[in-house]
């Protein structure tokens, strides 16, 4: 038996000495690394794909029908008019802006507050529970949020504020605020957690109280991350479709008060795309809105990324 083993070992040794030997494992390894690289760049391919395909469908409108001044400057969105269709998105942009703005008024203070509580005050079980709850909030589907706006918030707003219609910018803003809050809370909490404990300890050693540590040390040190959290929350609110469609009232309007019904860019696409003929001006202009939405969210995400990167460098 010892003789066998040494022969075996010799054979193995010989194979190892042959440094150019490329067995099956080597080729499998190569194949996998190529395959996995393909998966790795898939996200880039899909982003390019999204851009290419929505541009392909929408570009016809941009170069033939679009009148830039009317498009951005007019509030007359009458794409289905028989004789003189007009494509002014000013009111739609105002709708999106008002709803997103109200949503941020709701969600920014509360989610930053919640993030500070979870990261700096809560401990142990309480903290785990709160984190899980926040995560569950983020999971509620947007169509359910829309339904909540429609069936629960609507009568509530009519009762409380004594207004005739409860489907308005305020309703959509609150719904959107509650939707954006969990994401902002999670990202903001990550940013606060990323501040090294040595900072806190140093401040406490100087005699600072807990809230002094939070306001003078932790928040300044994590402000880029908090900014990114707010930006991503804005992006979420801006791009939300179903909830806004169902809760905002969906009427073309430049709002003068939170109780005005509005219509958002995203909701317009969702509501009208089904009724358009493929290739018509109306169909194309909806894709043009898609290009606009894509571009704005792209810029928001890029900015958030640069802001966070700033934190790492500094």
């Amino acid at each position, binding site marked *: 038996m010892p003789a066998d083993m040494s022969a075996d070992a010799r054979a193995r040794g010989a194979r190892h000495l042959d440094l150019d030997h490329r067995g099956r494992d*080597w080729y*499998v*390894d190569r194949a*996998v*690394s190529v395959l*996995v*690289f393909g*998966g*790795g*760049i*898939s*996200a*880039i391919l899909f982003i390019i794909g*999204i851009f290419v*395909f*929505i541009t*392909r*469908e929408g570009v016809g409108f941009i170069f033939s029908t679009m009148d830039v001044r009317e498009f951005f400057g007019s509030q007359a969105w009458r794409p289905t008019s028989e004789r003189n269709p007009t494509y002014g998105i000013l009111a739609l942009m105002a709708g999106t802006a008002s709803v997103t703005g109200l949503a941020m008024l709701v969600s920014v203070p*509360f989610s930053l*507050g*919640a993030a*500070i*509580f979870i990261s*700096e005050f809560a401990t142990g079980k309480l903290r785990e529970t*709160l984190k899980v709850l*926040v995560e569950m*909030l983020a*999971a*509620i*589907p*947007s*169509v*359910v949020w829309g*339904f*909540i706006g*429609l*069936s*629960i918030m609507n009568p509530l707003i009519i009762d409380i504020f004594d207004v005739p219609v409860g489907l308005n910018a305020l309703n959509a803003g609150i719904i959107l605020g*509650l939707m954006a809050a969990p994401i902002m809370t999670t990202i903001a909490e990550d940013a606060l957690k990323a501040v090294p404990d040595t900072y806190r300890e140093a401040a406490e050693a100087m005699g600072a*109280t807990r*809230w002094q540590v*939070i306001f003078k040390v932790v928040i300044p040190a994590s402000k880029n991350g908090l900014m990114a959290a707010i930006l*991503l929350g804005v992006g979420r609110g801006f*791009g939300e*479709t*179903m909830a806004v469609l*169902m809760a905002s009232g969906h009427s073309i309007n430049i709002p003068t008060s939170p109780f005005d019904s509005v219509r958002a860019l*995203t909701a317009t*696409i*969702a509501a009208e*795309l089904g009724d358009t003929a*493929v290739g018509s001006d109306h169909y194309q202009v909806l894709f043009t809105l*898609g290009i606009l*939405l*894509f571009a704005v969210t*792209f810029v*928001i*995400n*890029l900015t*958030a990324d640069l802001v966070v990167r700033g934190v790492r460098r500094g």
Partner: protein
Amino acid sequence: MTRFASTELDERNRRVEWLFRTLFLMMTLILIVPVALILGVLIYKGSPVISWEFLTTIPRDGMTAGGIMPAFVGTIWIVTVALIASVPVGIASAIYLSEYAPDNWLTRVINLAIINLAGVPSIVHALFGLGAFVTFAGFGTSILAASLTLAVMTLPVVIVSTRESLQAVPYAFREACWNMGATRWQTIRRIVLPNSVSGILTGVILEVSRTAGETAPIMFTGAAFFLPFLPQSVFDQTMAMSLHLFVISTQVPGVDEALPYGVALVLIGMVLAMNATSIGFRVYLRGKKKW
């Protein structure tokens, strides 16, 4: 243990700290309590509707009454096909990012693309699905087109969670394996994946819950308002829970008031149950972790 006598300043500081603690706790609760109340209302109004019959019959009387069976089955079809499409790509991408990717511009661009893919509005994904899968690839409005649209949209969920669980495997495990002469792939297959498979599963469950709830991306790519029969293949259209909720609560007049509550409750129950499973699984794993 001796304590210093509290000065007036100490007392003030303690009061201020208590004040801030309470304030921030209130802010946290303001986010959570209304949602809990809303869920309570959904359960209160929706649970009387839910019965075995509700889950197993098709909608009747122009969708104003009856059950949700075709929508329920349709959602399962859509989610399954979307998973088949996105999980392999997502895992491959995560393996690349965690095990192969050097720290260079390409990796940064990939990460940026993933963030963007997650941040692009769902309706833009719908436009993409319509242009790419329905029209260009010629799938028509079908389960396949809807699922592929959702697969692209939820890809970041799989990638991010898989990458995290791959990176949670200590680097020393890999080094030990390489030192034994294993190739990169052998190390990944024998050491990294077995040690992170449960973490990956958590991410997949999370993706299921995301996919099941989405509405906008499937509206124009494969989900139908009303179909009294079940899909036979991936090239058929289908009803879906999320779109069904939208349709009966906004598009159909004269729906029994409790019906949409029932649909909303089933949908949110599905999604939250899966989320809770995923979270529970993660907590369990963290407790079991050997390193």
